[in-house]
């Protein structure tokens, strides 16, 4: 039976069709019509306190669940506040759909109240975007937006809807077939290339599997582990791929890159073959590109052909979905091995073991000294048995969390890798907890980052989203301070956040959360235990940490991965 709906009703119906269970947003004039039918929909709306929060919540939700995260904002300032999370999701290939209200069609271009050229502004930070011009097209546009966000290389898609279109009426129709003649992501790798890759891997003496975030996005962790074992190849996991293979696995080398561990960095550097899957030779991984992994041939598997050859020439390019290609690699390797064992690669594995022995990740917790963040992270890992989703901000605490948390499963590490967005952790943790309510979601945040989005604590408290947030209070913008300490002769400029401002415990309480504090190493474990025991409210735990601590190893920006700086003495 033909059913007449308003554009707003059709929008909500289309979201239901896309199996959306929750949206994160802030209402306003232009999007107002959409907020009425949402009351009658099973879709949950989480009211963020800032649209940036709504955007990162959608991203955290998507990271944790693998589903598309949805955020909603009004026109003008609502939409512009979404730009940071959109760019963040774009850089990290996170499937997000943003719905924004726009001024009425007639008013577009007239500098109307709360008008912004959202379509133009969001174009370079989305995979695709729409300005809806006819109410009839709403069902198809929404279906297309979800299809684009989730398939191929995932990413954010924005749909801008003028207010008159939300108010207009249409005869509801289910979305039709997706018709995008120019959009056909490759899934399967070319069999000839797969065969060439397998032969190259089999011959290689010093191979490294360079696993990127694409492994997580493609749900390819199982296949990755299987292939690594089958081919007997060690695996490095980039910042976006932590958890892609268990850190406890004998073939796992941990994280490479600017603050990676010595073995992961050096294994890539000395490798004769980088089997790159869902990674993009980011400058934080390669350091100086000219001197990066000089002897390595490259197999590059990516769903986005533009990543192949962008930074480093590939000897064997394979366009395809990470999981599908890994399964093809496994099958092809099976027939090549034909029951035989893979090469032992004894000298290579002894070399790796020697490096691990010689240069492990270390820190020292003086029982009478200030708290070291690594100690908090290790103790939290022990108390939770690593069974938690960890969300980080951007800075020193992020690097320590990635280094010292032993990740055992995919989708348990959520952070802003490509854009490095301070303020990501609190809202992303909220989104993750909404998506995975039965998991412990623990944000490890810096005091600087926390102050960028801490208003979302009230969202967590009121909406019943019991996240836990560790504020690593080193009283400074620590990562910037570290660079000033190392490269600007300890001339500290605009990095001091000053002890006790604000009072994080009181701030937490004022926001309806539990506030806890640990000031000495001895207080760390009991305070964490208390935090872990509270599951009916959000908890904020402040740790008063050592302001002088620095993250090592380190490759100074633009430096060569040949020169891993293990401590300040290496820079003297």
């Amino acid at each position, binding site marked *: 039976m033909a059913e007449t709906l308003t554009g707003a009703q059709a929008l909500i119906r289309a979201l239901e069709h896309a199996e959306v269970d929750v949206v994160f947003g802030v209402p306003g004039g232009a999007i107002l019509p959409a907020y009425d039918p949402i009351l009658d929909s099973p879709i949950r709306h989480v009211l963020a306190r800032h649209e940036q929060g709504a955007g990162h919540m959608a991203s955290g939700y998507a990271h944790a669940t693998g589903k598309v995260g949805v955020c909603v904002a009004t026109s003008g300032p609502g939409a512009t506040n979404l730009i940071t999370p959109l760019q963040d999701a774009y850089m990290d290939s996170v499937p997000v759909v943003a719905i924004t209200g726009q001024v009425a069609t007639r008013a577009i271009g007239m500098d109307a109240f709360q008008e912004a050229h959202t379509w133009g502004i969001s*174009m370079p930070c989305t995979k695709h975007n729409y300005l809806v011009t006819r109410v009839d097209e709403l069902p198809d546009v929404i279906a297309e937006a979800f299809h684009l966000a989730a398939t191929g290389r995932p990413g954010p898609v924005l749909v801008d809807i003028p207010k008159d279109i939300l108010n207009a009426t249409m005869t509801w129709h289910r979305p039709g077939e997706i018709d995008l003649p120019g959009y056909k992501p490759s899934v399967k790798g070319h069999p000839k290339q797969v065969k060439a890759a397998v032969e190259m891997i089999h011959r290689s003496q010093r191979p490294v599997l360079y696993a990127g975030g694409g492994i997580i996005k493609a749900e390819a962790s199982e296949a990755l582990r299987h292939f690594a074992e089958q081919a007997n190849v060690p695996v490095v996991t980039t910042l976006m791929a932590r958890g892609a293979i268990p850190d406890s696995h004998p073939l796992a080398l941990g994280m490479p890159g600017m603050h990676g561990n010595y073995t992961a960095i050096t294994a890539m550097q000395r490798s004769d073959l980088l089997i790159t899957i869902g990674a993009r030779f980011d400058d934080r991984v390669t350091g100086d590109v000219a001197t990066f992994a000089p002897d390595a041939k490259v197999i590059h598997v990516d769903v986005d052909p533009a990543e192949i050859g962008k930074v480093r020439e590939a000897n064997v390019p394979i366009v395809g979905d990470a999981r599908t290609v890994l399964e093809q690699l496994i099958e092809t390797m099976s027939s090549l091995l034909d029951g035989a064992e893979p090469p032992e690669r004894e000298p290579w594995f002894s070399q790796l073991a020697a490096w691990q022995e010689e240069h492990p990740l270390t820190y020292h917790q003086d029982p009478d000294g200030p708290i070291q963040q690594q100690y908090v992270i290790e103790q939290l890992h022990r108390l939770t048995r690593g069974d938690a989703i960890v969300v980080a901000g951007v800075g020193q605490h992020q690097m320590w969390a990635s280094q010292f948390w032993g990740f055992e499963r995919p989708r348990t590490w959520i952070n802003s890798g490509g854009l490095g967005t301070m303020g990501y952790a609190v809202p992303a943790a909220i989104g993750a907890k909404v998506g995975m309510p039965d998991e412990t979601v623990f944000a490890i945040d810096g005091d600087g980052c926390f102050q960028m989005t801490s208003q979302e604590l009230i969202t967590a408290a009121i909406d019943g989203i019991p996240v836990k947030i560790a504020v690593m209070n080193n009283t400074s913008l620590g990562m910037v301070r570290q660079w000033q300490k190392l490269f600007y002769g300890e001339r500290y400029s605009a990095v001091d956040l000053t002890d006790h401002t604000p009072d994080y415990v009181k701030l937490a309480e004022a926001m309806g959360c539990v506030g806890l504090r640990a000031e000495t190493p001895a207080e760390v474990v009991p305070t964490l235990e208390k935090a872990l025991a509270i599951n009916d409210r959000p908890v904020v735990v402040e740790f008063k940490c050592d302001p002088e601590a620095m993250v090592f190893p380190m490759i100074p920006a633009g430096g060569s991965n040949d020169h891993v700086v293990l401590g300040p003495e290496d820079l003297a």
Partner: protein
Amino acid sequence: MKHVISVTVENKPGVLARISSMFARRGFNIHSLTVGPTEDPRLSRMTVVVDGPEMEQIVKQLYKLVHTVKVTELDPTETVEREIMLVRVNAEASRRGELLDAANLFSAKVVDVGASTVTFEVAGEPSALNDFLELMRTYGITSLVKSGRIAMAKDLKTTTKRSRLRTA
């Protein structure tokens, strides 16, 4: 070095903005860009002349745009290229005859005559247009408008392997 790329796109609002925004963001240099309808009303075709040694990234980034249907880098030896221009030159009475003779050699059409200028329309191979401009410089060019190049592969098998790459 200049390369000519033929880009078939869905005929959707804003598609030109998407292409030019992508060129700006990736730091690719556009020498000229023309766009118009095709034999199929759902599609538009652009001819983009770009500067630079590296075409592979440009082609791949073009494909990455959702509305891009096909990208072909055209081989100059197997391509028909055309451009049209309007050029206004100084034409004092004493040199007018000589000027018109020169223009005749290029089949340039007089489209406007002013008190001390003549305006020509010239259409043809881009290189012929440049030759004509060289010649006109001696008289003094006061105004120039070029359409930008349009190009079409000759009816041979010319698609390069790049045109078959598909994007996510």
